[in-house]
């Protein structure tokens, strides 16, 4: 089946695969050809791609959407770390930036951003660890 992984910034993967495993919001899912149509949100984590005659590939996604049609699977990957309160903070930042320039005021440091970055870093670390175990 055809797999396309795209993000708003660039195309990440496109090709024919045997199966793909993704971290869906309600639990990890494995998609084989002829899967029933499905749309689900993804949480940050790794995608495992099985390609015929090749080693499994892992791609890190920081969330996004997974769309499954019988022969086509599309991953709309987020490029940024997304979380409701984090988005809120970015919005706040943009607001403050404007206010600052209009009034010259100070901004506050936000902890939610640090937390979300930490979560992402942890997920990335887990993946690196997995790679190492597989290789050594």
């Amino acid at each position, binding site marked *: 089946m055809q797999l*396309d992984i*795209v*993000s*708003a*910034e*660039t*195309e990440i993967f496109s090709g024919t695969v045997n199966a793909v495993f993704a971290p*869906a*919001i*309600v639990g990890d899912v494995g998609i084989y050809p002829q899967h*029933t*149509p*499905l*749309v*689900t*949100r993804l949480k940050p984590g790794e995608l495992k791609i099985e390609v015929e005659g090749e080693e499994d590939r892992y791609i890190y996604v920081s969330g996004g*959407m997974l*769309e*499954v049609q019988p022969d086509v699977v*599309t991953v*709309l990957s*987020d*490029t*940024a*770390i*997304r979380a409701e309160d984090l*988005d*809120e903070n*970015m*919005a*706040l*930042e*943009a*607001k403050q*930036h*404007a206010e600052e*320039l*209009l009034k010259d005021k100070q901004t506050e440091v936000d902890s939610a951003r640090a937390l979300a970055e930490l979560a992402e870093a942890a997920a990335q670390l887990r993946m690196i660890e997995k790679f190492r175990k597989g290789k050594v």
Partner: protein
Amino acid sequence: MSGAKQIRTQISSIKNTQKITKAMEMVAASKMRKAQDRMNATRPYAIKIKQVINHLAAAHSEYKHPYMHARSEVKRAGFIIISTDRGLCGGLNVNVFKSALRQIKEYQDQGVEIDLSIIGSKGMAFFRRLSGLNVVSHASGLGDNIHMNEIIGPVKVMLDAYSEGSIDRLHLVENEFVNTMTQAPGVSTLLPLPKDEEEVRQHHWDYIYEPDAKEVLDSLLVRYVESIVYRGVVENVACEMAARMIAMKSASDNAGSLIDDLQLAYNKARQASITQELSEIVGGAAAV
């Protein structure tokens, strides 16, 4: 010879300027190509996300998302205005501001209030001086390689305002990259989402949704708007580089013709002083 010497220093200073403008022209040309590549790389995502949204909207026509519902009365309108961070790019920013102001004036004549979200420091410098406009968010210093997370903030401010009902319409003002010579400023409507002209095919099947259709559609629509703005910002970088390339090219050409003129003036001055010296010598010899 004092006049000739002055001209000579002038020529060398213009030559230095010309070197700088030529270098900037070449830098802009290579950056433009990269920006164009990035612009094209955003296309697959936008196409895919649009497909899923269209399908969802067709399959769940009973659920009208606020983003798709046009409000009859417009009390306040939001604008996302994309400008550059740096100057020396010809009339690029001014053209965008002009088309924004034209639209804003149309609204103001109808008594509609305006909220602005500005990307790029040139836009901020321009719009902060104008009264009657409410700048609610701003992002600048994005550089040439822009990432999505820098766009999320300013867009969310506007999306939230729309969801709350404090703005009833959202526009995007940006440059369209027509080709290297032409950048066309334009105002487009982000919210409510313009109805797709394309006939949506009747589907006999539907997806399984996780967690549910409503939530999926919500997050897709937010990402869709963000991807449009992101593309606008990336496109604006391509426009900026193209405009700078052209501006620097004409600056280099101007410097060239200035140098030619000065060279001519220098030669004339030198010749005049030689002729004068000669006639003085001849005059002196005749006197003896």
